[in-house]
């Protein structure tokens, strides 16, 4: 399934969010199960399937990392998140350090340090995303490989961001 074709959008990392949500609204409307109340069982089933596809596609296209993964899949690049471990020692050491500081921040309830880290991680995510975009735009096998590595790195960065948010919530509840 090519979600870009389904939404009639150009197959690229840069997505016009206004175009995307317009296309989504149209597609969601024409595949809405209510429209098929008087149709045959088969048509109803198809509409439900199509509607689910439209919703999945919308999630994928609006979420940068999922969009990048989709583009790579369409180009035949397998990401194999489950089997392939990351071995970039420098990157992982940095991850380890961040996790350690986060633990420290959590136990000392240091909100200023948490805010600093939040900013740092968000700016790192931005850097990874722009690198990802640049690599995906080149459209060759070598840069697709680098893009896949960026996707993998982003997974770790998002995990950190989520953990920071959890701690932020916990601290603001006190």
């Amino acid at each position, binding site marked *: 399934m090519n979600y870009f074709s389904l939404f009639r959008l150009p197959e690229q990392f840069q997505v016009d969010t206004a175009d995307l949500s317009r296309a989504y609204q149209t597609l969601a409307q024409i595949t809405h199960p209510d429209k098929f109340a008087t149709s045959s069982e088969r048509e109803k089933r198809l509409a439900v399937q199509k509607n689910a596809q439209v919703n999945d596609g919308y999630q994928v296209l609006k979420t940068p990392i999922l969009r990048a993964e989709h583009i790579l899949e369409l180009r035949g690049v397998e990401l194999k998140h489950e089997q*392939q471990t990351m*071995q970039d*020692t420098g990157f*992982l*050491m940095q991850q*380890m350090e961040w996790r350690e500081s986060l633990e420290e921040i959590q136990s000392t309830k240091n909100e200023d340090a948490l805010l600093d880290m939040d900013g740092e991680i968000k700016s790192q995510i931005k850097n990874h995303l722009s690198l990802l975009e640049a690599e995906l735009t080149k459209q060759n096998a070598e840069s697709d490989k680098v893009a896949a590595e960026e996707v993998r790195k982003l*997974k770790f960065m998002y*995990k*950190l961001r989520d953990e920071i948010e959890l701690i932020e919530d916990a601290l603001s509840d006190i």
Partner: protein
Amino acid sequence: MAYSEKVIDHYENPRNVGGFDKNDPNIATGMVGAPACGDVMKLQLKVGENGIIEDAKFKTYGCGSAIASSSLVTEWVKGKSIDEATSIKNTDIAEELALPPVKIHCSILAEDAIKAAVEDYKSKQSS
């Protein structure tokens, strides 16, 4: 998801948590990460003159299964030669801990951590 008793035991009483000085020539360090869940694992082996692993330590940021897999591995590698250690397979780890299919990647991570540590040791020895 239900964890097996062995996973819970390792999770609640992790063996050999900590680390050694990574610049020590007799210390082998393996750093690996699982993109699927963002888990990060550091496994360090202290290798004696005879190539036998005398001690092992780990630090893992991840789910219970990832912590249990690395904790178990530190117990298993002790007393083994570095080559014997690389023969530990993720399937052995998964079987011992009764990991469900969705957690198999945690055992793969632990197997790859051993391999990465052994590679680090070999490159240290040859330099």
